[in-house]
C-alpha cells in the first residue's frame, strides 16, 4: 500500500476531472457530498491536503447556498473542476438575486484584497467570539484556511461562487 508521501511524489499527469452534481440540496446531504468531493479529488490530485481543502470549500459553499436559498425547491449545482496539474476549483450555483449578490461580491473583494489574510482571519475569529448569531467565518475560512481564491458572478438569477486553488501553491 502506498503511503500518502509516496502518492504525493507521483506526477499528477494529464488527468482532468469535470464532476457536476445538480441536486435539490438538503442539510442531510452535506456530509455525503463533501466526502464525495474529497475522495474524488484525492484520487485525481493524490494530495490529501488539497483534497481536504476542496472538501472544506465544498461544505462551506453548500451551507451558504442552503442558508441564503431564495427557493429551497430549486436545485443547487456543484461543479468540481480539476485541470491536470494546474488548478482545482469548486463552484456552487443557486438561485439568488442582485441584493444578495452585491454585498457578497463586495465582501469577497475585501477578502481578496487583504494584505495579510491570516491577520484578517484572526480578526474575524475575534469578532466571531462575540457574535450572538451567525459566524461570518465560512467564506473567510475558505480563503485563510483552505488558501483558495473566491469569486462570484450573477447570471440572470443564478449566483455562482467559485473557490479555486492552484496546484502546488502550498508547501
Amino acid at each position: 500500500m502506498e503511503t500518502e508521501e509516496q502518492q504525493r511524489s507521483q506526477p499528477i499527469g494529464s488527468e482532468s476531472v469535470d464532476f457536476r452534481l445538480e441536486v435539490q440540496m438538503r442539510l442531510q446531504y452535506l456530509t455525503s457530498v463533501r466526502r464525495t468531493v474529497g475522495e474524488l479529488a484525492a484520487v485525481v490530485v493524490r494530495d490529501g491536503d488539497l483534497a481536504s481543502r476542496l472538501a472544506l470549500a465544498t461544505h462551506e459553499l453548500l451551507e451558504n447556498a442552503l442558508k441564503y436559498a431564495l427557493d429551497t425547491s430549486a436545485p443547487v449545482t456543484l461543479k468540481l473542476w480539476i485541470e491536470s496539474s494546474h488548478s482545482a476549483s469548486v463552484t456552487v450555483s443557486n438561485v439568488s438575486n442582485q441584493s444578495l449578490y452585491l454585498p457578497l461580491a463586495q465582501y469577497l473583494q475585501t477578502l481578496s484584497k487583504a494584505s495579510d489574510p491570516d491577520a484578517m482571519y484572526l480578526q474575524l475569529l475575534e469578532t466571531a467570539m462575540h457574535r450572538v448569531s451567525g459566524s461570518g467565518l465560512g467564506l473567510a475560512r475558505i480563503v485563510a484556511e483552505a488558501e483558495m481564491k473566491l469569486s462570484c458572478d450573477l447570471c440572470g438569477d443564478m449566483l455562482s461562487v467559485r473557490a479555486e486553488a492552484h496546484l502546488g501553491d502550498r508547501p
Partner: protein
Amino acid sequence: MIIKELTIQRDAFSVLGTRPAPNRLSIALEGSADMRVQSEFATMIYKIHDEARRNHVSMVTVNMQKLEFLSSGCFKGLCTWVRLLLERGTPYKLCIVSNPSYHWQSRSLQALRLLAPEHVTIEKP
C-alpha cells in the same frame, strides 16, 4: 464516568463527556458537525464551561481524533469557548487532541490557538 448532561448523540455527530479524574473533564467529539447541530453544540459548550467552573476543573481535554469535520458555524462555537476561557476567574485550560489525518484540523486548530495561546494547547497523538 460518563456525564449524561455533557452528551449528545445525533445521526452524524456525537459528544461524549467524561470525568477521568475529579479535576479533569474529557470531551470526545465524533463525526461531522454541521448546521444541523450548530445550536446544540453552542449550548453544549456553555454547559461544559459551567461544569468545569463548578467543579474547579483544571484541564478540559477535547478529543478530536474522530472528528471528521466541523463547519464554520460550529467552529464559531469553539471561538466562543475561547472567549469564556479568557474571562476573569476561569480556572481551567483547554487541551485539544487532534488527528493529523484530518488535514483541516491543523489549520483550524492553529488559528483557534492563536486566539489564546496561553489557554489552549493542541496535541497530536
